């Protein structure tokens, strides 16, 4: 039944996160943007403090829509800090999605990042070259290859690595493996310096004859030529609404701030005026609000489908495509509207513009989302629509 009302739990979680953002995130936001790669004791103290409440994200037990709401709120506070949150990252989402009960018991408590991207391939995930070979004598996997742009690779313990069992078999042979902290041959080789989300570390790792137990493979080791890759891609259906929510949160931060600032200058935003009576700035703000709402509703829809266990790849990509693009444009516009002050590092708007750009890039660029949508509505394969 069509209903736009959020559950009481979602509203409560939103409220709670909002307070945390105002009291902690916003206060250290600039500091860790300026001091890339420094320790963030406030974040760890906060994480400790919140343990009693079941953590900030409440584990992954919450329903998907509530997670989306919480993520938007956190990102409204600060996207870099959200991504750096000590409770874990994308790797945990992947583990939660496909791990066996034994694996959940072993890896569930540890934090985990996700390593798919390589120097030679990003969007084209089917082309990865990192290999996993089974050593029949020791019953261990041997991982070899290089991964880049791993969010939280420094902060988090484990890393979920995508590797191929046999390059000649293409996508079906790509599997994911949990490589634990301290595994021999796992080495952090680079810390990236970025445009935004600077408080979140992004690293490169090399795996050099890195040996891990047989039981660290996620999903089945069998190479199914049909649909084998789909399981891996299905993780994205679950995580994309979250990334969309990140863009929405940052865009809302910028828009809220812009409206408040304009109001101090005596400019309010009317919803009951004809277009001839609106200024260019008022029109721009109205358009941005509409864009933001459109992105949010598409994202909420994708999340509610996950809650119901309905296939949502199309809807998840719509939300992600819209939100990533919207956030990029809205934050740019907000900087513009606020003139020299918007451009100044005294305010956070310029930072939000830098931060949110990532939401149109990671977890599949805007273009890749459009490809997914187009293939689905046209009924095309990857060969037909490249």
């Amino acid at each position, binding site marked *: *039944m*069509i*209903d*736009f*009302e*959020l*559950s009481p739990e*979602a509203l409560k979680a939103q409220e709670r996160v909002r307070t945390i953002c105002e009291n902690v995130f916003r206060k250290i936001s600039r500091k860790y943007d300026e001091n890339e790669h420094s320790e963030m004791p406030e974040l760890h103290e906060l994480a400790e403090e919140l343990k009693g409440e079941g953590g900030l994200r409440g584990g992954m037990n919450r329903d998907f*829509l509530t997670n989306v709401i919480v993520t938007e709120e956190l990102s409204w506070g600060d996207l870099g800090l959200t991504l750096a949150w000590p409770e874990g990252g994308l790797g945990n989402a992947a583990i939660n999605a496909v791990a066996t009960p034994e694996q959940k018991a072993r890896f569930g408590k540890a934090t985990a990042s996700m390593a798919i991207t390589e120097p030679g391939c990003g969007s084209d995930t089917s082309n990865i070259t990192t290999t996993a070979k089974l050593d029949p004598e020791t019953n261990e996997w041997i991982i070899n290859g290089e991964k880049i742009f791993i969010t939280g690779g420094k902060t988090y313990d484990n890393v979920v690595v995508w590797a191929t069992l046999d390059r000649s078999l293409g996508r079906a042979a790509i599997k994911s493996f949990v490589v634990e902290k301290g595994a021999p041959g796992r080495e952090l080789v680079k810390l990236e310096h970025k445009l935004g989300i600077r408080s979140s570390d992004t690293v490169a790792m090399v795996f050099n004859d890195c040996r891990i137990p047989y039981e660290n493979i996620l999903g089945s080791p069998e190479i199914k030529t049909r649909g084998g890759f789909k399981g891996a891609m299905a993780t994205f259906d679950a995580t994309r609404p979250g990334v969309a929510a990140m863009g929405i949160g940052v865009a809302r931060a910028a828009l809220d701030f812009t409206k408040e600032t304009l109001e101090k200058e005596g400019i309010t935003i009317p*919803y*009951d*005026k*004809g277009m*001839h*009576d609106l200024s260019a700035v008022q029109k721009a703000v*109205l*358009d941005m*609000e*509409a*864009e933001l*709402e*459109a*992105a949010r*509703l*598409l994202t*909420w*829809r994708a999340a*509610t489908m996950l809650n119901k266990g309905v296939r949502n790849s199309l*809807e998840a990509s*719509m939300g992600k*495509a*819209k939100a990533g693009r919207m956030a990029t444009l809205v934050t740019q516009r907000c900087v513009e509207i606020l003139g020299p002050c918007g451009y100044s590092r005294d305010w956070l708007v310029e930072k939000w513009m830098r931060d949110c750009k990532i939401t149109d890039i990671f977890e599949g660029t805007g*273009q890749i989302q*459009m*490809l997914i*949508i*187009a*293939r689905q*509505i*046209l009924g*095309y394969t990857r060969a*037909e*629509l*490249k």
Partner: protein
Amino acid sequence: MADFSLNEEQKLIQETMREFAQEEFRKLAHESDESSTLQEDALEKVCALGIFSSSIPEEYGGHEMERSALNTIIMAEELAWGDLSIALGALSPLLMMTPILESGTEDQKKKWLPNFCGESFYASTAALMEPRVSFDPFALQTTAEERGGKAVLNGVKCMVPLADRARQILVYAKGASGMEAYIVDGDAAGLSVGEREKYMGLRALPLFTVTLKDCEVDLDRRVGGEKGIDYNRLLNLSRASLCAMAVGISRASHEYALEYAKERVAFGEPIAYRQSIAFMLAESAMEVDAMRLLAWRAAWKLDRGEDATRESTLAKRYCADQTMKVTDYGVQILGGHGYIREHPVERWFRNGRSFAALEGLAIA
């Protein structure tokens, strides 16, 4: 708990109306547009579906289930998908009926509502828009003055659907208490229906200029009596409905372009194999869904009796812009063929342009 799927009743409405629009409206759309005629038959058939009487309580002659803006706009999307002009014409009785249902006095409900429950189409309409570049529904220039126990209306209205045959026209005017609405007989002294207006689109829909010159109306014709109308709410109900119609037009164009792009071969393969075409289609699909969700949310809020001014305004702006983009893509994807009137995409493009200007031509 947030959810975005139709319930059984709504699915039924959607299915029935989609089928109806396909069977009845689609086959008439081209010819009606070319000849600028609205088939009376189509109006009667819509009426026969019982869509008016089902929103009217039994005590006024109807068999109301539960009046719902959301259900109405689900229907409006489908009918507009069939054809916008015919849909606007066929639903025009709502323009008088809804304000009476919403704000009418008991006497007004008793007097007027049974008309909409009959077997045949009760021609009635509303006059809101005014012919000026900077028209703004919040600054009407048509006035209502109380004089000698009557209301005297003065002003010029435009884009009044079916004014030539309407038994009554609901005239919106600025009065002492703000925006007011009067039920004026189509043949009232002082009301004159001008020449049929000519527009880029909506060609099948008879639209007229209506001039009010010292037009005297009994005070019991003021909707809501002393209390008057909730003008904002009526505008918001109108916007929700227009948004849904914008979705209908956009979806029609998108679907047509998608099928065409799969068939049309250029440089040895279907044009849809190329990203520049496929991405226009993907964007259209995404925006059609976004528009619909915004429209639904406005209607949902209105059904809860909440103020939906912000939601309706944002939805209306968004839908007007996106409809222009989506219907433009529709023409673009067909290339030169899209420019030729044998294909419907140019009609949807012309009709799509109307939403930015339209206020009050449909209501939920």
